């Protein structure tokens, strides 16, 4: 397999100067879209994507073909669009420790445009939006350039490439809230409302944006489409023969030697990502634990290093693959302070709609702040456990609060000693060891 075929998503990435439409075409771009439009019916594309085993790369890992299959038109094998439909690319990448979509958006914007043509053709969508987080200014500029070029060369607009298919694509930049990444909150944001998640059902595929059938897919998920069209489902599966299909853009951040991101076969082990690609821990530091896929995943420990980074294996180890971005905790950083930082994020970004999340996340911040500052009480640990229970799945309006619980609950399990020492000694020993704070009590020595 050539290098291009092994790293399909990132092979054409150029962060300095992304490929123009003609350059992208000369590197094989728009062949996937062309094949879909000229050689396949929408139903055939859907079947191909279903057979490829592609799962959503935004965090939940839901099979893409199944998500699309819920759009009404496929119930009766009708290849004609029965009514107005929307396809939305979720480019609201705000999960802390995650920067993979930015890389694709800034580095190869035409790939996403091509992907959205294929996706919209498959579900007969008339209009698409790229829901981009507001802070990604460079990505916004480059996507708009790519869209303008695509319109000029009839890859967007009416009767694309001489076919019956027409599709309009727009960039919407968000005004910034993490909850916009939740697909129904994103839809509310696109409608100009506060980004509060909607109750499901109805699912967006039935009634989404402006009440019309809508599919929301992550940027990385969509970006696989041109390659699946070009090379087929068997090729896609063969990229990761022992795991879920395809490649995954993995990343590592924290105090590792060479933080970054790498497109690797789905199911690459944590050890390979951390030690081979990220170069291991920075000098003088030891691995304490890590979040495998962004802020809203459970901690894993050094004993989990040989776990393959795919949906099922990480779930078996007690966490979630999430976005595939490792956030690495070293032995000189305080686990309590790290969890406090994470929960502060969730407390700030809670939309405030449901009580467990609106009240529970700031409450956890208050308790954790007390512990971290050496004013913790023994019963605080019980409070934290209770909060984890109050905010768990089934008790909240959406997955934000349960996501906040994941690092907290697992930290209480794996780093309990640290929590207890903070409370018993009335201080954080890590602060003393890094000389960041004024002198603390004698009990604490790093």
């Amino acid at each position, binding site marked *: 397999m050539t290098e291009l075929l092994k790293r399909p998503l990132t092979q054409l990435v150029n962060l300095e100067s992304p490929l123009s439409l003609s350059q992208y075409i000369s590197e094989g771009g728009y062949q996937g879209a062309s094949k879909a439009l000229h050689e396949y019916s929408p139903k055939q594309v859907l079947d191909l994507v279903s057979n490829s085993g592609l799962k959503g790369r935004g965090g939940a890992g839901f099979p893409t073909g199944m998500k699309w299959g819920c759009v009404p038109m496929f119930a009766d094998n009708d290849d004609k669009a029965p009514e107005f439909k929307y396809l939305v690319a979720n480019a609201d*990448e*705000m*999960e*802390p*420790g*995650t*920067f993979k979509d*930015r890389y694709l958006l800034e580095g190869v914007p035409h790939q996403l445009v091509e992907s959205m043509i294929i996706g919209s053709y498959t579900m007969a969508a008339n209009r698409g939006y790229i829901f981009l*987080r*507001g*802070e*990604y*200014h*460079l990505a916004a500029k480059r996507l708009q350039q790519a869209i303008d070029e695509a319109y000029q060369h009839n890859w967007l607009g009416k009767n694309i490439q001489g076919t019956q298919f027409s599709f*309009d694509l*727009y960039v*919407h*930049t*968000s*005004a*910034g*809230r*993490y909850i916009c990444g939740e697909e129904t909150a994103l839809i509310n*944001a*696109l*409608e*100009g*409302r*506060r*980004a509060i998640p909607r109750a499901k059902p109805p699912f967006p595929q039935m009634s989404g*944006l*402006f009440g019309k059938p809508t599919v929301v897919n992550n940027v990385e998920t969509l970006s696989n489409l041109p390659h699946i069209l070009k090379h087929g489902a068997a090729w896609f599966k063969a990229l990761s023969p022992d795991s879920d299909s395809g490649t995954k853009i993995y*990343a*590592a*951040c*924290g*105090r590792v030697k060479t*933080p*970054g*991101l790498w497109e690797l076969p789905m199911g690459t082990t944590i050890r390979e990502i951390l030690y081979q690609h990220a170069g291991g821990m920075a000098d003088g530091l030891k691995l304490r634990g890590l979040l495998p896929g962004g*802020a809203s995943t459970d901690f894993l420990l050094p004993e989990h290093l040989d776990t393959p980074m795919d949906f099922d294996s990480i779930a078996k180890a007690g966490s979630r693959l999430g976005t595939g*971005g490792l*956030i*690495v*905790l*070293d032995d000189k*950083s305080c686990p309590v*302070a*790290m969890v406090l*930082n*994470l929960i*502060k*994020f969730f407390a*700030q*970004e809670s*939309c405030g709609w449901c009580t467990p999340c609106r009240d529970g996340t700031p409450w956890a911040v208050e308790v954790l702040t007390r512990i971290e500052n050496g004013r913790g009480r023994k019963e605080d640990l019980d409070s934290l456990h209770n909060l984890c229970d109050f905010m768990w799945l089934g008790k909240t309006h959406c997955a934000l609060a349960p996501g906040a619980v994941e690092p907290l609950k697992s930290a209480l399990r794996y780093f309990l000693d640290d929590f207890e020492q903070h409370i018993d000694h009335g201080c954080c020993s890590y602060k003393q060891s890094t000389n*960041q704070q004024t002198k603390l009590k004698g009990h604490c020595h790093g």
Partner: protein
Amino acid sequence: MKSDVLSMENISTVTIDYRQYLSTTEVAAIEHEVSIMETREAAGIEALKIIQEHRGWVSDDSLYAIADLLNMPEAELEGVATFYNLIYRQAVGQFVIHLCDSVACHLTGYEEIYQTIKSYLGIDYGQTTIDGKFTFLTNVCLGGCDKAPSMMVGKQHYQSLTPENVVEILADLAKQESEND
């Protein structure tokens, strides 16, 4: 509290005719956003951002004018404006510093950068320098985790920050007349 406090004459309502307040450029930009949406109010967020782009922030009067243009209740638009992190409902300085305070930056030196900016500019989060040059705000993860710590000033991202280079960046900005220099 006396009951007559709540009578109608004590409630002041403000409406602003957008035609007397918004420029033709602003109206045209907002109408373009309306044209790619199903409803007028769907363009609300983009409208707030357009006004902020032109005027630096969204004043009460701006908000009333946008509500008038989009034919939606002022309170609803205020609900939207205050929900989103990147809409400024108070006047801000020439440069708005958004320092990332999320986990990757937390692990790689955020605290030092925060202390450096705070003491260099003499302001804390939510404040603006007396000369109106800088406003200091936090930001959730900026997606620069591989080159943390990071911050965004205006539309520009700065990565791999150190206490030394962050002071240089701010000093350079302080010399600029506008963000586009």
